[in-house]
Every structure is written in C-alpha cells, then in structure tokens.
C-alpha cells in the first residue's frame, strides 16, 4: 500500500477547466473521500490518479514515484467502476483472475489467490456463474474481488454504491469499510453523498467547480466549514444561514444580528458589510425566554428528534430539537444559539471569517 500525493493538478477540456490546481495528500492506509456535487471535478481527479485521463499540468505521486505521465497499466492501482464494468462475456471466476492472467502469473498461484479473495468476499459459491444474472451486491463483490486480487498500491472507487438499492447500500458501505480496515488499503473514494462520505471516510476533500473547497477529517469539515458551500453541502438539513449587514473586529465575542446581540466565538479578523451567520440546526434551541423571536412554520418528526422550520426576520431556519418537546405550528418562540459553534461568513466571498473556532483549519486551507 502507498501514499498518494497530488500537486497542483489541473485538467482542461478546451476552454472548460474541470479541475483547477488541486493539491492534497492521501496517507498510507487512509480511506479518503472525494466529495462534491456532480460536475465538480471529483471523478476527473480520480481518473487522473488512475491514469485514465492525463493531467493538463501538475504531478501525481504514488508511493513517492511520479506517475503523472504513465499509462494506467503501469500504475498498479485498482479501480472499481460505478457500474462495476464486469466483463459480460466471462464468468465470475474469469472476471476476478483476468488481471492476474495479464501479469502472467502461474496457474497454481492464480488458484490460490482466487481462493483467498473469494473467501474474503464470501463469493465462493458463485464463481462459475455468468456475471449477467448476479444481484447488485454480488456484482459489487466481484468488482471488488477483481480489484483486491492484484494487491494494488491503492484502490480507487467511483461511486461504487451508487448503483445499489438503498437498503443494500448501508450493508455494502459497512462491508467496504470493514474490508478496508482489514486490508488497511489506501482507498480513494468518489461520492456525491455527504452522508456516505461522513460515515466511511477518514478524510474528506470537498470539491466544487473544479476547486478544492476544504480538506480534512469529517468532524472538522462538519463543525468548521471554511466556505458557505461546504457548510451548505455537508449535513442534512444543512447549515442555517442568517444574512445581515454588520461588522466584526478582532477580539469581538458577539455580533449584532438585527437588534439582537448574538454571542459568537472570539473573532480574529476584521470584516464589514454583508455578513452571514451560519449555525447548524442542532445548535439552535427553542426557549420561551430567547430574545430572538421566530414563528414555527412546520415540524417534521424523525423519531429521536424533530426538525422544526421557523420563520425569522432573517429568513427561514431549521432547528433540530428533542422529539418530546411540544412545538405547535404558528407558535411564537425564542431562539438561542450555541455560541461556541457559530461560524461567520463574508457573503461576497462566501468564505468563513477567521475566529477561534476555525483558526487552525482556515490557515491550512
């Protein structure tokens, strides 16, 4: 297994820039998520790592070796495609051992490898079946088998769960993660599903329009978004944005939201103009005493908690509150924000304003 380093990677298709100068590092054995909406360049980035696309500029190092100009066959990586790309004219066995045949491995060794892999994936009993009649999950396992069997330096997976039924997805996600932990394989995983990314990843890169927005562990990205895009994209429901004209100066511990003072983490930069107060739904509490008033529009009951939609003077917000709290539609309630978990953004640049909360994260970005 190996670490993967990407430096200033760029890909242009004519006038269109798919990936703009990306740099990040995937540590040895890490489960690394490339996350973003469709068309954000995450798949292109991964295809460049695989060697299926050649970068316009920039370097890719796998295990310390510069592979930027090398064809896919010479990179010793395995790719799991979204639609699995199992060879339809072969049975399961031949699909799995196909890469080994190419290497010219001896028959007894191929047999041993096949036995090993089919045991790990529990597909011993379907080896002689044609791939056409397999269920989604079995196809997925065969595709993984074909990837694992070669002992590649890294696994690249392009939305491998995208083609599965919802109910099966959960199980496969767990299986994938367990498999990764057992083999300790460096894995780069592309997805547009933020829940999947949070659930499985050791580290996440969030991309948008070919640009890396943020790069870090799931908790960091969730709690300390550096741009409004990340704050909005991660989390369900996403972060609430309260837009207001105002100003912050270094050492401020509160801002004036309309007529109300809202406590925020210690600010470290100055900014004036259109600001955005970002707060996650679970960091809003409803209390009768709160000075900031809002009207309840709706409530969705989710079992353990409920999502309350409220109308404030700064637009709609959603709050995640305990399920046993009674909330009536039309009621006027007070809101309180968890002051340690508020991020302020500058509306124009959509970037977070430096504060005690996001200090280390912003400087990295």
């Amino acid at each position, binding site marked *: 297994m190996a670490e993967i380093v990407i430096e200033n990677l760029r890909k242009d298709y004519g006038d269109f820039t798919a990936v703009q100068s990306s740099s990040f590092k995937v540590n040895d054995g890490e489960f690394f998520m490339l996350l973003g909406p469709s068309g954000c360049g995450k798949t292109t980035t991964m295809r460049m790592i695989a060697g299926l696309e050649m970068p316009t500029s920039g370097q890719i190092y796998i295990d310390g070796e510069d592979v930027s100009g090398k064809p896919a066959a010479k990179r010793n990586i395995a*790719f799991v495609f979204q639609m699995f*790309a199992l060879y339809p004219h072969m049975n399961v066995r031949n699909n799995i051992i196909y890469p080994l045949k*190419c290497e010219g491995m001896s028959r007894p060794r191929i047999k041993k490898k096949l036995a090993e892999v089919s045991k790990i994936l529990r597909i011993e009993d379907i080896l002689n079946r044609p791939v*056409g009649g397999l269920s989604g999950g079995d196809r997925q396992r065969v595709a993984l088998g074909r990837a694992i069997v070669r002992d590649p330096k890294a696994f690249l997976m392009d939305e491998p769960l995208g083609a599965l039924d919802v109910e099966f997805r959960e199980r496969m996600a767990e299986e994938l993660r367990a498999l990764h932990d057992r083999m300790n394989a460096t894995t780069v995983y592309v997805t547009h599903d933020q829940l999947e990314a949070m659930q499985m990843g050791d580290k996440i890169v969030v991309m948008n329009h070919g640009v890396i927005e943020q790069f870090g562990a799931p908790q960091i990205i969730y709690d300390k978004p550096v741009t409004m895009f990340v704050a909005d994209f991660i989390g369900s429901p996403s972060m609430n944005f309260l837009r207001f004209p105002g100003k912050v100066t270094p050492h401020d511990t509160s801002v004036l939201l309309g007529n109300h003072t809202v406590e925020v983490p210690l600010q470290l930069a100055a900014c004036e103009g259109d600001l955005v107060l970002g707060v996650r739904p679970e960091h809003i509490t409803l209390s009768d005493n709160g000075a900031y008033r809002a009207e309840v529009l709706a409530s969705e009951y989710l079992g353990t908690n409920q999502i309350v939609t409220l109308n404030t003077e700064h637009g709609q917000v959603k709050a995640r509150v305990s399920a046993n709290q009674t909330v009536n539609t039309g009621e006027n309630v007070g809101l309180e924000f968890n002051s340690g978990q508020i991020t302020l953004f500058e509306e124009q640049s959509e970037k977070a304003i430096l504060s005690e909360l996001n200090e280390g994260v912003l400087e990295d970005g």
Partner: protein
Amino acid sequence: MNNFSVTTASRPQKVIASILVALYALITLMPLIWIIMTGFKSSSDAIAYPPKVIFTPSLEGYVNLFTSQTRLTSEQIATTPPPEAWYDKLVHSHQMVIVGPSRFGQRFLNSVIIGFGSTFLSVFLGTLAAYAFSRFKVPIKEDLMFFILSTRMMPPIAAAIPIFLMFRELGLSDTKLGMILLYTGVNLSLAVWLLKGFIDEIPFEYEEAALIDGYTRFQAFYKVVLPQAATGIASTAIFCLIFAWNEYAFAVLLTSGNAQTAPPFIPTIIGFGGLDWPAVAAGTTIFLIPIMIFTILLRKHLLSGITFGAVRK
C-alpha cells in the same frame, strides 16, 4: 371477449395466426421449392405444360451441371463399350458421353473466394474503422461518417463505366482480387455504420477496466470489445456476404473467364436445344447451400443483432 390478454392468444386466434404464417411461408418459399424441384426433373419434365408437380426424380440436371458432354454419332454408340457408372448410363441414354468436368466447380470456387474474401475484408476494416469512429476524437467525424454513408446513395452499378475503365487501367479486370476489392468497397460503408452502432453500445468502462488491469489499448480492444461486438460482427458479416454472394451486374461486366462467379455462369448453362433448365436449377440449388449454412450458423446472432442492440443489456 371478456379476457383480453397481450401475451396469451385464444384458440381461434392461434389457428388464424398459424394459417397466415403458413400461407406467407408458402408464398415466400414457392420459387425456392420450384427451383429445387426443377433441379431433380428430367429435361422434358422441366418444360412440360401444364407443369408437372408429380414427376420421376432424375439426377440429369446435376450430372449436366458438373460435366461437359459431347454428342455421339450412331456408329460411335455401336463401337463404344456399354457405360458402367450410373452417370455415364444417364448421359448415354441421350446419346451423349462425358468428356470432362464442367466449369461450374471453378465458378463456384470463385464465388466462395470472392464472397468470403470480401466479407472478411469488409468486416475486418469495418470493425477497425467503426472502433476508431466510436472511441477516438476524429477530426470532422460527422462529415466523414456522412461521406461514408453517401457512397450508398446511388446504386453501385451507376458507377459501372468508371469502374470498368479503372479496372482495365489497373489490370484488375477479371481478377479475383479486383472483385474482392470492388465488393469490399461497396460493403464497407454498411459495415462501418452497422458496427459503429454496435460498438457505441459497449460501455467504454470495460476497456478502462482492462487498461487498469494491465492490458494495452489493443489488447483491451480484442479481448474485451471484440467478444462483445460478436453479435454485431456476425450480422454485419451476413449482410456483406449476401450482397457479395448474390451480386450479378458487376460480375457480368467485369469478369469472363478467370474470375467469373457463379451468378453470371448459372443462367448460361446451355444444353442441346436451348437452356438446360434442370442444370440451371441444380446450379442455383447448390449455390444456395453455403449461404444457407452460413446464415443458419449465425442466425442466433442475426436475430439479436438486427435489433441494433436496442434491448441489449
């Protein structure tokens, strides 16, 4: 009338459908049946009026087809020893004697070489071209594809005179190579268009998977794409072969001795007293056999192939 169903037919519906199918089959197959029957008739039965449906089968037509004969005078008949083999006896009864094989075998072989040769070449070149058109960025791709299609917009025979002159200049007249090239030229546009459709249907991911598995681009092509395009290749091959096999006009125009194919030869089999109809019918019957075998062998592919991959998984 209270249980309409799309999939199960009622009994009268089935009977009517079967009758219609049988009738259609009979109408379509009638000429074929008539030719096969004529091949086994004697010369007089073949031209009898009203036509004979019940007749005594005779192999006269087949013997005449494969042999060349000469007429004997009455003295010669008296002096030659009585014939021994059945075919000798057969011709002897018409005061004829076999002097050697006819040219039919050679013509038939020409048809096989030219037909299968041009089919192979069309499909081979067509597959490569279609793959390139399907997978690579070819400059002015759309225009090139249209140009290729446009070669089919007029009947090939409309270009007969230029082709005739070109073939004479190039020394290709009456050569097998010339005919193979000509039929390939005519078939290639069809092959490229058909095959491009089939190759477009094969997801590029399979090749990418093969590339990542360590195969080269060309290995990915022939180990992954070709097996999956087999259906398309088979149906394209049938279309090409049927054209090349049956082509008549160019064969009449451009070939005479060396490279003549069976179609222009068969109708010219002349016996004594006009066309030898049983021999012509026998030649046609034999001529049908290779293409029937070829089509039957590939018919599974043909059936799934002519849907143009519309329902392919």
